[in-house]
């Protein structure tokens, strides 16, 4: 798997992401500066990592979403290329129009930084094939604006088309207000686009990929992408 990690001023999770990609795919990812107008030849996966691009000025991800490299990412996605956005990367994908909706301020106004449980809603996508449908995984979150919101029609379409891949839940997989940490619509933690090749999620799977991290539940997401691309090749 040839991956490219986008680098915007103010992000801080790009090295965690690169480490996870290298560990699981066995290949060094390319780091792509925001001012670039093209992606490296043969890229299989583009990742927008977490952090605080442009200091979260204006709205989270708004300025990064208008940077030159995002035109290349939009073209890559419209050709069916796989795109993953994590945390600030999810906010950037929403602001760039690659995913619907927006991430609003957490409902209880606090920055949330701890492990959460996620229910994997389906396993038949490139982003979830490393898991079983209904499986509960534990990964960290670290965000102040992760409260997913969209108009009613968009939420209805996301649900109707099975485009919610990850939801906040209890350790045993129950979805309720107590475990909906940031007040997101329908406890949404991660969604895909209509075509199914772009995923945005608030939690950080790249931070649970090695034993030394205390948990390896995030590894399945990357392993699933590798398996998907090997099968497609």
């Amino acid at each position, binding site marked *: 798997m040839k991956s490219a990690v986008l680098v915007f001023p103010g992000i801080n999770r790009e090295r965690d992401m690169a480490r996870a990609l290298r560990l699981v795919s066995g290949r060094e990812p390319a780091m792509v500066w925001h001012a670039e107008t093209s992606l490296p030849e043969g890229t299989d996966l583009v990742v927008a990592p977490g952090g605080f691009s442009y200091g979260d000025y204006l*709205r989270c991800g*708004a300025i990064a979403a208008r940077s030159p490299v995002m035109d290349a990412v939009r073209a890559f996605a419209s050709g069916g290329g796989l795109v993953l956005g994590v945390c600030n990367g999810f906010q950037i994908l929403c*602001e760039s129009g690659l995913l*619907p909706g927006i991430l*609003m*301020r*957490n409902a209880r106004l606090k920055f949330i930084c701890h492990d959460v449980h996620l229910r994997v809603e389906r396993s038949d996508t490139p982003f979830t094939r490393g898991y079983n449908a209904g499986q509960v995984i534990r990964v960290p979150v670290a965000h102040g604006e992760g409260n997913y919101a969209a108009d009613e029609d968009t939420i209805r379409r996301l649900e109707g088309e099975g485009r919610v891949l990850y939801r906040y839940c209890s350790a045993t997989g129950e979805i309720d207000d107590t475990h909906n940490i940031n007040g997101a619509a329908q406890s949404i933690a991660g969604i895909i686009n209509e075509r199914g090749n772009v995923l945005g999620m608030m939690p950080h799977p790249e931070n649970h990929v090695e034993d030394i991290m205390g948990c390896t539940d995030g590894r399945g997401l990357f392993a699933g992408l590798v398996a998907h691309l090997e099968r497609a090749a």
Partner: protein
Amino acid sequence: MKARVTVTLKTGVLDPQGKAIEGALKSLGIEGVASVRQGKVFDIELDGDKTTAEAALRAAADRLLANTVIENYRVEVLG
């Protein structure tokens, strides 16, 4: 010329920051506060006549200053 773009949350969009400010105003004892919604104001200086300036400001608001999923905007050319 000088212009102002005001961006506000659409009706019905939950505004936790506005709610927190509302609570703070009430705890200060400021009377009669029914509700607070937070928004943004952009004061912009630009060239050109009023018509082209308004068009440019609308493009700026549509493409960057507002996210029309949740926000409305108003453009005023102040002269």
